[in-house]
């Protein structure tokens, strides 16, 4: 199974095995990481905002216009900000690193 590296807001890194086909948001929630993901993946909020490591950002499918619209409502954006409910786990993402953003 691919491994996703989550960096928490306190700087701790957790390497979590993830099933292909799940979203990174689902992996985070299943492992009880601090993430609100208020809308549950319906692409209706921005509370699963993560910062993708620069090395990995360009390997992802680019964000949709709907995702861009919602990123407009997030805070603390970086050039590699994404909503992780839109990133599907696959073998190609084995080793990806994402940094969580504060829940508030």
């Amino acid at each position: 199974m691919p491994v996703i590296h989550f960096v928490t807001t306190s700087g701790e890194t957790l390497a979590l095995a993830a099933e292909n086909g799940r979203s990174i948001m689902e992996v985070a929630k299943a492992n009880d990481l601090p993430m609100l993901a208020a809308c549950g993946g319906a692409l209706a909020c921005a509370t699963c905002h993560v910062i993708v490591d620069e090395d990995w950002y360009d390997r992802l499918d680019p964000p949709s216009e709907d995702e861009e619209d919602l990123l407009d409502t997030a805070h603390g954006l970086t050039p590699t900000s994404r909503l992780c409910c839109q990133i599907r786990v696959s073998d190609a993402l084995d080793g990806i690193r994402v940094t969580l953003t504060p829940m508030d």
Partner: protein
Amino acid sequence: MSTQIPSGTEVTDVAIIGAGPVGLFAVFECGMLQLRCHVIDALPALGGQCVALYPEKPIYDIPAAPELTASELIARLQQQIAPFQPRFHLDQQVTELQRRDDTWELTTSRGTRIRARAVMIAAGVGAFGPNRPPLPGIEQYEGHCVHYLVAERERFRGQRLVIAGGGDSAVDWAIALADVAAEIHVIHRREQFRAAPETSARLHELAATGKIQLVIPYQLAGLEGDGERLAAVVVKTLKGEARRIPADHLLAFFGLASKLGPINDWGLGAHNGVIPVDPSTGATSMPGVFAIGDIAGYPRKLKLILTGFAEAAHAAHAAHAVVHPDRALHFEHSTTAGVPIRAS
């Protein structure tokens, strides 16, 4: 026996915290068991997340309703529960939950006090309020220098404004205040705005004439001031290059965001926004306090509206035993009993 109840305190059988789909359907399930309900919500309207986040999104997994929008779902639930005459306390958040003899007393941010034998927490992902930018010290400027809505346009006459956000509210207010304000800087993280094409075009016209300064691609980074009056808004590019914009007011339009808030402090063991419950009743660790819908957690929970509806039915039956411990519950299906109407 109960001590005297202070005047002005509402008394009911069940207090439901949250007027989202599950809180509303709990009124129905309680009503079928002749339990009277009061419902409290932080938003000024019914519907919770359905109206706050995705009113126009279609929902396909409501039994016997092949497709309806979230706002239609709420309208139908309102119709369905109307016979039970629930009392709503909107635009206020429950701040305290305290045991008073054999009842619970809820106090809201508007000072409403409600006593109920049973409480159902149907608070979803928490109370919705403005999506506040997490800028250090922002709270000391809120209300007089930092605003999340515009109540009165004239208030900003001759003032230097920073408007942040990229949606309809930001664009509409930038246009509407262009003739009133001394200066308007619009901060947005990218070229495109989420606004109707005509309004976007109007914004760019005003920017071309110099009435509005577009500060793109920037986001809010900080506030400067003496703690009372705002002096400047600091903005940064996504890469961190900073710019300081002298301003009297910041208008921040980032939509709504939810926060669990005081519920965390009620001793219910809430963790990451979830209150652990007994899935067969919705019972929490406190007697007579139930949690239903997205906020209620148990192994293999499915966060679906339809799961929440079923949880509301379970909790209503369990709440009946709390409200009327001496009364047997003679169960009848709605097809047999009809909808009992009871004045509150």
